[in-house]
């Protein structure tokens, strides 16, 4: 059974388009995250939700909007895509916001042309 799943795995789209990435975890965790990993492999947190409430919102353009319909799901919607948005986006979950290991999804490779 996949603990943290993301769809799609690959996403190729043109500048200006709007796209969504979906994430689901079946671990019963309370906290979920979105990370961006750029071409230099730097993994940077974007958002975190705990029990469907936003608790971390790092310096991310407001074109990025997370939505957590329930504890098991955290989706990422991106408006007006730009070339610089090209990266791998990882979803993760943990039992609680602090001092707990995170379980990562397989990643979504977004390419904006």
């Amino acid at each position: 059974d996949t603990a943290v799943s993301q769809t799609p795995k690959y996403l190729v789209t043109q500048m200006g388009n709007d796209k969504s990435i979906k994430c689901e975890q079946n671990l019963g965790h309370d906290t979920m995250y979105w990370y961006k990993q750029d071409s230099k492999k730097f993994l940077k947190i974007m958002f975190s939700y705990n029990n469907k409430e936003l608790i971390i919102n790092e310096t991310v353009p407001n074109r990025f909007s997370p939505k957590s319909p329930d504890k098991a799901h955290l989706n990422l919607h991106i408006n007006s895509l730009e070339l610089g948005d090209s990266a791998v986006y990882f979803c993760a979950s943990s039992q609680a916001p602090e001092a707990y290991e995170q379980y990562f999804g397989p990643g979504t490779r977004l390419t904006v042309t």
Partner: protein
Amino acid sequence: SQKIEQNSEALNIQEGKTATLTCNYTNYSPAYLQWYRQDPGRGPVFLLLIRENEKEKRKERLKVTFDTTLKQSLFHITASQPADSATYLCALDPTSGGSYIPTFGRGTSLIVHP
């Protein structure tokens, strides 16, 4: 400014030797530190967590040390195997405004040669 530094150069070692990876940080006071493994095309996988009041943590062939005075963590893999080849990331959880912000280093690539 706050920094987490891991050696950007790949570490090449022979099978059977001990690999030692370093994570240094500045301007953080983390309560704990985590190590993850990342294989190409995959998400990071949690390996070990060590708290500030722990000097050392072990799990099978893995050992992590945490020196809050030196602001450094060392990650050791004993009897290394080619299957240990991967990128290893350290992560801190500094608190900012009451929220824990997981912050990762860029990772060090380990290559174990048979």
